[in-house]
């Protein structure tokens, strides 16, 4: 399977289909494995601005990619989101329920970026990380509390909200 490298990932996705047209089996296998789901492209990010509508092609690149979602999970700890959004928190703060369920990507993005009053995350968190956080929050339905706790414990020695002492 072709790797997108530094090029635009959506071009690469189109490239797959064109490239593998003779090999239908590979296309099928590719669809089963959800093409690009595991890709980990380290290069210029496509997320330099907020999402434009529900059909923004960049959404699939974040929502459909396990690495982007996992990065969102790390930043969820880094920025101390878990301080308010934990299991059993009141109302929409509750991690097990909350506004993420059924909400579309731009709506969740906007509520993270602009829905926290004075904290004004839109100006304090880089756009790419906001994209990753949004993807993580929308993916939370699939994360059991045990899995979240397990990941949080692994990341506990990283500089997170409660333990961060400023730049080293």
């Amino acid at each position, binding site marked *: 399977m072709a790797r997108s490298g530094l090029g635009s990932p959506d071009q690469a996705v189109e490239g797959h289909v064109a490239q593998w047209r003779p090999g239908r089996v590979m296309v099928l296998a590719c669809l089963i494995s959800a093409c690009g789901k595991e890709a980990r492209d380290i290069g210029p990010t496509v997320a330099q601005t907020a999402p434009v509508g529900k059909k923004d092609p960049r959404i699939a690149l974040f929502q459909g990619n396990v690495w982007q979602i996992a990065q969102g999970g790390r930043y969820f700890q880094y920025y101390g989101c878990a301080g308010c959004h934990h299991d059993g928190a009141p109302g929409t703060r509750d991690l097990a329920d909350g506004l993420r369920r059924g909400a579309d990507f731009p709506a969740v993005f906007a509520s993270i970026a602009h829905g926290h009053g004075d904290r004004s995350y839109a100006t304090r968190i880089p756009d790419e990380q906001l994209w990753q956080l949004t993807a993580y929050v929308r993916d939370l339905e699939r994360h059991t509390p*045990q899995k979240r706790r397990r990941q949080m414990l*692994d990341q506990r020695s990283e500089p997170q909200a409660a333990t961060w002492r400023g730049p080293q």
Partner: protein
Amino acid sequence: MRPDQDRLDRLSLTWRDPPGLWGFLTTVDHKRIAARYIVTALLLMFLAGMLALDMRWQLSTPENVRMGPQLYNESFSLHGSTMLFLVSVPVMEAMALWLVPLMLGQRNMAFPRLGAFSYWLYLGGVLTLWISHALDITPDLGWFEYPPLSGPAYAPGHRADIWAQMITFTEVAALAASVNVAATILKMRPPGMTLARMPVFLWAMLVASIMTILSMPAIMLVTSMLIADRLVSTHFFSPASGGDVLLFQHLFWFFGHPEVYIIFVPATGFVSAIVETFSRRPLFGHSVIVLAILSIGALAFGLWVHHMFAVGLPRLGNNFYTAASMAIALPAGLQIFCWIATMWSGRPWLATPMLWVIGFVTTFVIGGLSGVMTASAALDLQLTDSYFIVAHFHYVLVGGAMFPLFGAFCYWYPKATGRMMSERWGRIAFALIVGGFNLGFFPMHLLGLMGMPRRVYTYPAGMGWEGLNQVATLGSVVAVAGGLVFVANALVSYWRGAPSGGDPWGGSTLEWAGEAPAPSWNLAYTPMVDGLTPMWNGGRPLRVADGVAIARREVLITSVTDADPLYRQKSASPSIWPLLSALAVSAMFIASIFTPWAIVVGAVPIGAALTGWFWPQRPRRSGA
């Protein structure tokens, strides 16, 4: 005793496989199974070698853009995992599967269907890793995937699961093969071949098999714990909640270090066989070599920690494992001196197998010396994770195991195919591979000492590493070209090679007694052994015994130490059940990457397949 044609016909009828595809899928002929194993492993060696060449291309110039970091990580992980788990260990087991019954004058392995099962499961592991690679789910954390990096927090997706489950596949396959080899060697030796008269090759395979049986459970356990951490959020490797990431390293290397010797010890068996035949004299110091192999087998379990000096250990731990690591140089050195003494006092015949042995001795000694250097905890702290280590382990694994393997391939090729490989192209391949290898890997010692770390996808200009990296890349190209010559020689000789006859080299051990290519039933009669070199008995014909059935599949079982004949044992006939069982096990292994319920649900088809496999075929006799 010359067998008459009627006997040969009846043997062929009894031991034949069904024709066509069905025969291919159901065969329990150890030679067919082992040949598949070897061809698969060599194909993978080619693919992983191409990955290596690609990586050398990337490193040939500073800040090269052939690969990004992610692709480089995937490349070296796939290269290492393939070479260690899917090439080196299986190919050594395959050589045992192929040669052990021949060298014992037996008709098949002790558990013929287990051999077939082993191959199919191994193939499952191969396909798991490489189909995942085709789907861009390549493991990217190296050939040992330490948590927490491989844990649920830092390795999302299924890359690490694929790696861990590929290991489960290959380890079950390796256990199946090893149990088979050990049982065959211990219980199926020909009359007269007491333990004291057992060729070194068989000792090496026996020790390697027992080491496999003792060490593989550790890694199956640890990769299963890793999968559990990732799949059902257990806390084995979560220090913050009482787990321990070092547990992974200890269990991994408790397998990982013996694994090096599981690869190397069979190679000493190849070398001993080749040196004996091509020096035209019985091996010098047979007992010393056997005792050296046994002590390597024991010591190998006491020095895994030298892979972990840099993680921080108690001072006494470092001292102990430094001493143990250096101690293993003694038996290895004794073996080398015995082989040299054999050549020295014999009449060496420098055919290609012998050339490979000489290439092995020189290259392996360099690898052994850098091993003594890295065995020192103090020095290892400076050298670990540098290119010095890359150079060291390629010298011991390629020089210490692959060169003997290539020699063994040339040596036993006539037995397998009935044709000789070209000596001239064999010499060219030898020169290119050994020369290219040394040109490619020696500079890496220097690069490591100059500070170049391993597992970096590029380096900045001006570090002074450019020249040596280019030499290393050039050497790799030469070695790969030599590999292609070697493969081409093997392929062309398969159809065009000169007919070899049954014993082209005048070999010393029993596999040379029969025809070439070896027929499905191996030897027409049971050989009787009265010395270490049964084929070199002063020109007298080999003594043989009759009595094992020829109208049905039967093998002779003998006692463990004295090889006294005990009874005749029914030998299993071709069956589809090993393949079906392997398919059921593969389905369970793959599905358990995604859901823990696969273990429960998947046990049902496995149970069904095993029930079919072991369904009784003889009526019970009353009182029996």
